[in-house]
């Protein structure tokens, strides 16, 4: 192997991700892909890759990686390693330790040439729950050696900026969900005005939140229905789950809201234990904000 990454320390949950495999929902296959798609696109742009090239998603405690060949990486998302948001060369045989800085939750590590694992159902993303795709269908372990592709472009000067969770409650913009009318007036008011703490039991399928319960939900009458990214399901105990890239393709819980796509990266960057609030916006407004964000990501920034 002339270009590769040796996993010296794997970190807590390091997986290969790209922009996912939409298109297999009718067969029950989660889209998967980076939870922070914005970070993936920006990190790839920085190192000169196509924006959907496969990269590493790192979680809470970052990995230590050793270069085979002279590599260039960029870490975008949470503050991991020596120079988040910037291009970092790793010369052949040298290691890069991506220690978590204060409040670091998730980030994407892109490498010039992209992580070279086989495509499965059209994507290099790891589906952690169903154990396929990515590197051998699983999170990285100590001693794994990942092949890195040939560079397609050259690293860009400059840095990539993404929004960091502010001090205090994190505000997520959200649209009314397809089953908002399933909830009575009090439950709706409680959802939109409440503070919701992120639970440590969150994973790549969804961010679990806890706050004042919206009440016991009787779901027996609800038919299973396809789930959109950012959908906020309310469980039988009256607590929200924000569905992410690896969400099951369908579910039977009522969805009170949908988090705006532009704020899903911010949510992925927010630590368990922190509180979020939902700010109600219309679908039209969410579309307008998304179009603005698309333009800024294409220009290399997402703030």
């Amino acid at each position: 192997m002339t270009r590769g990454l040796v996993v010296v320390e794997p970190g807590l949950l390091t997986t290969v991700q790209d922009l996912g495999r939409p298109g297999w929902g009718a067969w029950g296959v989660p889209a998967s892909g980076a939870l922070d798609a914005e970070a993936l696109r920006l990190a790839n742009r920085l190192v000169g890759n196509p924006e959907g090239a496969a990269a590493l998603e790192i979680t809470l405690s970052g990995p230590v990686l050793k270069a085979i060949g002279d590599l260039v990486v960029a870490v975008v998302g949470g503050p991991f390693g020596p120079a988040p948001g910037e291009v970092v060369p790793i010369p052949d045989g040298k290691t890069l330790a991506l220690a978590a800085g204060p409040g670091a939750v998730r980030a994407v590590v892109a490498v010039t040439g992209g992580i070279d694992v086989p495509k499965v159902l059209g994507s290099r993303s790891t589906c952690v729950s169903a154990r396929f795709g990515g590197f051998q269908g699983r999170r990285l372990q100590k001693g794994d050696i990942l092949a890195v592709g040939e560079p397609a472009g050259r690293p860009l000067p400059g840095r990539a900026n993404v929004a960091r969770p502010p001090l205090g409650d994190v505000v997520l913009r959200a649209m009314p969900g397809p089953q908002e009318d399933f909830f009575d007036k009090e439950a709706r008011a409680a959802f939109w005005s409440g503070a919701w703490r992120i639970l440590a039991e969150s994973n790549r399928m969804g961010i679990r939140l806890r706050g004042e319960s919206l009440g016991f939900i009787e779901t027996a009458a609800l038919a299973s229905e396809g789930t959109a990214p950012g959908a906020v399901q309310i469980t039988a105990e009256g607590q929200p789950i924000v569905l992410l890239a690896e969400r099951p393709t369908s579910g039977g819980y009522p969805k009170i809201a949908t988090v705006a796509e532009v704020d899903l990266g911010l949510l992925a960057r927010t630590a368990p234990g922190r509180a979020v609030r939902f700010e109600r916006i219309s679908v039209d407004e969410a579309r307008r904000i998304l179009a603005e964000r698309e333009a800024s990501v294409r220009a290399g920034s997402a703030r």
Partner: protein
Amino acid sequence: MKPAGERAWLLEWAGDESAANGKARAAAAALRAAKAPGFLDAVPSARTCLVLGGPGFDASGLPALEADPPASAPGPPPRAHELRFTPDGPDLDEIASRCGLPPESFLRAFTDLTFTVGFLGFTPGFAYLYGLPPAFHLPRRPSPRTAVPAGSVALAGPYAGVYPGATPGGWNLLGTTAQRLFDLRGDPPFLFSPGDTVRFAL
């Protein structure tokens, strides 16, 4: 039609669930066949079809598709499957007794049925099969099992289903099949597609 996000729409049909599901399947197949610019996915389910678009997807044709889904879905014709299974499920006796039959009679009745794959979900390759008579509609188990064996043939509500892998699950377990439902070395990797028919055999 309801929005489910900036670029997500739910088409929905009322009335009998399996008829509604047939429309959802036809709409999803039509969207998949059309391959419109920016189209990402169409996920049929019990009464809805979720449409996911990316940049450049034009949703203006969706209301017409909801109003008048195609009578027959484009794409590969449905396949007919026969699935052999062993009636070794821990809930067989309870299922039969709740359906008011001795286990042998229940199994005979069950293997006489022809099911239709309505939709897949929960985990890759898990199919929700329509075709159970109302007398065989049972509630889910009060508390889900933490591990259901791979290949479990199971019932819950109006559906029969088969667990592709070992997962947690709350359905009533009738038996197990050795047939693989999701195998990435296979072509296609999924045994069942929406619209296929399934008969069970001992």
